């Protein structure tokens, strides 16, 4: 009995994009047709019922965001697909865009219809160049078949989609930074005043969601909120795309039901660890999230259970560590990542990411002092409490969780 599900990923590897009719035969674009027939309020209700949360990592209830965007009175609105997928260990959006681009488009078109937007933009990280080209072709095909462009499927709803490229900056996954780069500026986040939903892309109200969120919306509309919700386990609703990697036999993108445990993901779906160890820990959600020690592998993969423990669903990345890895060595890769990706605008993150990495490096060399550990904590909490954007606010999470769960091991590197 497979522990995975096949709703969001139902059409993976099942069609070629230039065989548009195959896609329709498979059942594609049912969600869009349902939405156009039932109306925007039905879409909002379906999202509410399914308890869909934004899949980029912030996990904000999708129906709330779509609803307030719909209510906003504005002549011009945009929908923006955040395909910057920069969290290390995350590649599920890659597969969504590569293996079922039409579903992502479908979700985008449904969003445009629901909130009353005329244009959609898909921002894809530059590292996914081939996928960007594929998506551009898919858009052309969809337009040719009247699923995009003027008067979609005979309705008075018209919608255009454009594809944009990133240029190698993780921070551009943050909404305001992403939009800045689309304006020809450096990708530095700006203060949220006004908010992106009020004044975003090209200074118009913009609704931003992750690639997977749009794919989920299309899936929910196609299969109905109940069917989608019931795919979850033990009363938890829905499914999640995860990217399983690291010390694992079968790395890849999988669709799992909420409620499954980490152990089941690792053993049953992932085929167990490659080095046959238990796996010392898992980093779930991306580099910006806590480490989950092997003692907690029976935690159910749900927002609620994870939040309680201080863990994150985040982007859906699940990185399994080796059995013999030194925690400080792993942290070095995390802090090095943030030092490289900090945009440099605000003091706590610009300086803090650097200082944290320097201290971790001293720990790796077994040359750290207790005072440095104290400072590590001080800087970490300052970054969490006062950074301008999510990058600085979440960068210390992995280190703090390591200090909590692996304190003894880390202290071995402290020579005072």
């Amino acid at each position, binding site marked *: 009995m497979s522990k995975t599900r096949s709703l969001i990923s139902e059409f993976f590897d099942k069609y070629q994009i230039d065989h548009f009719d195959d896609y329709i035969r498979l059942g594609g674009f049912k969600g869009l047709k349902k939405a156009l027939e039932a109306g925007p309020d039905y879409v909002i209700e379906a999202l509410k019922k399914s308890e869909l949360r934004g899949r980029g990592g912030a996990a904000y209830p999708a129906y709330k965001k779509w609803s307030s965007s719909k209510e906003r009175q504005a002549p011009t609105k945009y929908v923006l697909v955040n395909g910057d997928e920069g969290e290390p*260990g995350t590649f599920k959006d890659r597969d969504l865009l590569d293996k079922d681009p039409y579903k992502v488009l479908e979700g985008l078109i449904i969003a445009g219809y629901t909130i009353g937007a005329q244009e959609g933009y898909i921002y894809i990280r530059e*590292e996914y160049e081939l996928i960007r080209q594929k998506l551009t072709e898919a858009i052309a095909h969809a337009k040719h078949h009247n699923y995009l462009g003027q008067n979609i499927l005979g309705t008075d709803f018209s919608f255009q989609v454009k594809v944009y490229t990133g240029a190698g900056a993780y921070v551009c996954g943050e909404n305001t930074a992403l939009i800045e780069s689309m304006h*020809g500026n450096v990708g530095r986040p700006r203060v949220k005043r006004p908010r992106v939903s009020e004044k975003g892309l090209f200074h118009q109200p913009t609704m931003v969601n992750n690639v997977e969120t749009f794919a989920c919306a299309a899936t929910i509309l196609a299969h109905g909120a109940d069917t989608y919700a019931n795919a979850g386990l033990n009363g938890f609703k829905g499914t999640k795309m995860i990217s399983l990697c*690291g010390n694992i036999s079968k790395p890849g993108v999988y669709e799992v039901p909420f409620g499954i445990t980490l152990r089941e993901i690792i053993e049953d779906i992932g085929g167990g660890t490659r080095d046959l160890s238990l796996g010392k820990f898992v980093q779930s959600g991306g580099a910006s999230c806590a480490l989950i020690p092997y003692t907690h592998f029976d935690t159910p993969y749900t927002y609620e259970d994870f939040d309680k423990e201080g863990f994150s669903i985040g982007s859906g990345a699940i990185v399994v560590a080796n059995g013999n890895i030194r925690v400080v060595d792993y942290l070095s*890769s995390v802090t090095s990542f943030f030092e490289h990706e900090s945009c440099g605008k605000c003091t706590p993150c610009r300086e803090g990411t650097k200082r944290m990495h320097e201290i971790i490096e001293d720990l790796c060399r077994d040359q750290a002092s207790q005072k440095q550990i104290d400072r590590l904590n001080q800087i970490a909490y300052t970054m969490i409490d006062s950074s301008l954007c999510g990058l600085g606010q979440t960068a210390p999470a992995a280190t703090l969780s390591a200090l909590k769960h692996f304190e003894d091991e880390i202290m071995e590197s402290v020579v005072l």
Partner: protein
Amino acid sequence: MGISKERIEDVLAKYDYRADALVPILMDTQSLCVDHFLTEATQKYIAKKLDLTYVDVYEVSSFFAALHKTPKGKYHIQVCDSSVCRINKKDIIQTFLEQHLQIEPGQMTPDGLFSLEKTTCFGACDISPAVRINKKVHGHLTIQKMKKLLGELKEASHV
């Protein structure tokens, strides 16, 4: 300048000379340069044509990792240095590349054929350790595979 004015004009025209398309304009122009590098002269030319200040362009070109700060080899090899590839022993591949090409990350071989760079995760974690060569991803790497790849590229460059 590394690239002719005409080719830059083509890129600018493709984006209707829109200043807000600066990022893709710089990316596209760089990809047309043999050494994957936008010289100061090229950047200043683009600035003038888009009615931007020099520093408007330089801010962008110096901020984004995909816009290179120095000329790169004909085959630019990027080795992922993030957590998953480190777990999956990317050091072995990197050490091999350094020894074989006799260069450190950030450097270029004297014949201008290969350059090496460490990058952050580019989403190939399921096939790690992985490298990108001129943006193309090569995964499930072993030393043998890497050796073969380099050989093929060297062959291709002689044609």
